[in-house]
């Protein structure tokens, strides 16, 4: 092992320590937690997890989160695809300004939008629905998806399009049969980022929901405040919120580096 690999190892150890702490705490009993810190659970228990999986307010939190995240991912990528194609292939009146305006929405502080969103989605009768959160999250996910996809599409030579037209492909057929397979890494990465930002965002998700579509992480806040310190339960719920992210990232592991660079290397 080379000497400098010590740096990534130390860094990963630093990243994993709080996560390990959380996971180990989720297997401890409340008494053990409150008695003081211990590195390993002394009495290993699955009670916290059992509590979560038998209480509908808990597990519906997960289902709600997954529903609106999935809706948002599909919606964002679907509308971003044609737009990214236009930005990467055509020049049209105001294209640069439009692109920048889209990006400004990625830059907007979510806190600025919390109250107006509450009013907007209430007025269109969408408050406390999955659709409301999915739509609200497109505010920052669509610009991001457009940006990522445009980066990947720029890497595909324009000759590909021209050859397909010469071969007699119609535009929709070309787009679905030839173009999409060529940028599937980009689509994967864009979907991953939409998933990620929708999954981790909480301010808007919390503001736009009350009961029916309440996300898991918001359920946690309620538990923390109403039932006092049920730390084991909280830790178990937190651990469970890490799992979907870990699963999704495993699928795009070979594109992560390039994906984070938005296809721009």
């Amino acid at each position, binding site marked *: 092992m080379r000497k400098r690999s*010590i*740096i*990534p190892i130390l860094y*990963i150890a630093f*990243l*994993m320590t709080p996560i390990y*702490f*959380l996971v180990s705490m989720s297997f401890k009993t409340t008494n053990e*937690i409150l008695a*003081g*810190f211990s590195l390993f659970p002394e009495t290993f228990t699955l009670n916290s997890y059992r509590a979560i999986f038998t209480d509908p307010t808990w597990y519906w939190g997960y289902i709600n989160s997954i529903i609106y995240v999935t809706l948002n991912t599909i919606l964002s990528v*679907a*509308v971003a695809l*044609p737009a990214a*194609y*236009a*930005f990467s292939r*055509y*020049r*049209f*009146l105001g294209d640069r300004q439009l692109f*920048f305006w889209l990006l400004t*929405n990625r*830059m*907007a*502080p*979510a*806190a*600025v*939008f*919390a*109250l107006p*969103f509450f*009013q*907007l989605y209430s007025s269109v009768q969408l408050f406390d629905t999955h659709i409301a959160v999915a*739509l609200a999250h497109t*505010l920052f996910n*669509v610009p991001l998806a457009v940006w990522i996809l445009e980066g990947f599409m720029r890497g595909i030579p324009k000759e590909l399009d021209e050859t397909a037209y010469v071969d007699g492909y119609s535009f929709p057929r070309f787009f679905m049969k030839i173009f999409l397979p060529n940028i599937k890494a980009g689509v994967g990465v864009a979907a991953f980022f939409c998933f990620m930002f929708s999954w*981790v*965002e*909480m*301010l808007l998700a919390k503001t736009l929901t009350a009961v029916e579509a309440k*996300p898991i*992480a918001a359920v*946690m*806040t309620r538990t923390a405040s109403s039932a006092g310190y049920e*730390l084991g339960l*909280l830790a178990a719920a*937190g651990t469970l919120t*890490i799992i979907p*992210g*870990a699963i999704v*990232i495993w699928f795009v592991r070979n594109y*992560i580096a*390039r994906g*984070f*660079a*938005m296809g*721009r*290397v």
Partner: protein
Amino acid sequence: MRTVNQRGWFFVLPVLILVAFNALMPIMTVVNYSVQETFGNNVFFWQGLDWFEQILRSDRFQAALGRQFLFTAIILAIEVPLGIVIALSMPRKGIWVPVCLVLMALPMLIPWNVVGQMWNIFTLPKVGMLGYFMNDVLGVNYDMTQDPLAAWITVVVMDVWHWTSLVVLLAYAGLVSIPDAYYHAAKIDGASSWSVFRYIQLPKMKTVLTIAILLRFIDSFNIYTEPFTLTGGGPGNSTTLLSIDLVKIALGQFDLGPAAAMSLIYFAITLMVSWLFYTLMTKDDAG
């Protein structure tokens, strides 16, 4: 290159409608509030630019803005160099690469309030791992609910923990795109490892690092959930960053006018800095 084709607008239309729905109407609402005064009952009075003046002059806003800039400056100064160093020392190929990348990306995939909550428990004296080590093993008096400095350091460390990987992954993407021949040539030319960094690696990482700094600036400037769940903005107002203050005014006190004016000022600052970065980036694309 790209051809002139106004059909582009047709392709962009769905995005346009969706984002306009989400962005334009709320912004109009905010602008509307920012120039009016209300005492409830949906009765509004024209207020002009008074709110803006009041916000810009208020000590509270200036303090929050100062804390915000300080916070962003600190985390950029730590995360960017640290991210570059880690990316440089990562393996370029082999089975450890995906393992490293996945583990490093993991903190970014945790919901933001879980991050805040996790660090909150992590730092609890006695119960939390960090609190236990600081107080009981090292004997340092560490309690971030009492000590503003401890709270600040904890918020910064949490952000470093949460987001340094973004810089690492971007820098790493830039590094792996450098062909081996460059390193070979540098070896033959007798270049020192500093020269290799300065003349080969850094120029190749320029674009991705610009993206990294841009994203880190925006996201740290807009940060809300993590520090709020960690410290609640306290002790006192010591860790009340801009977003936290804004939400306090808007949803806590329901002072819609000042909150709206503050939102617009806040947004304008973010926009200005981001625009600066954006022009820098696209200038390179064109040249």
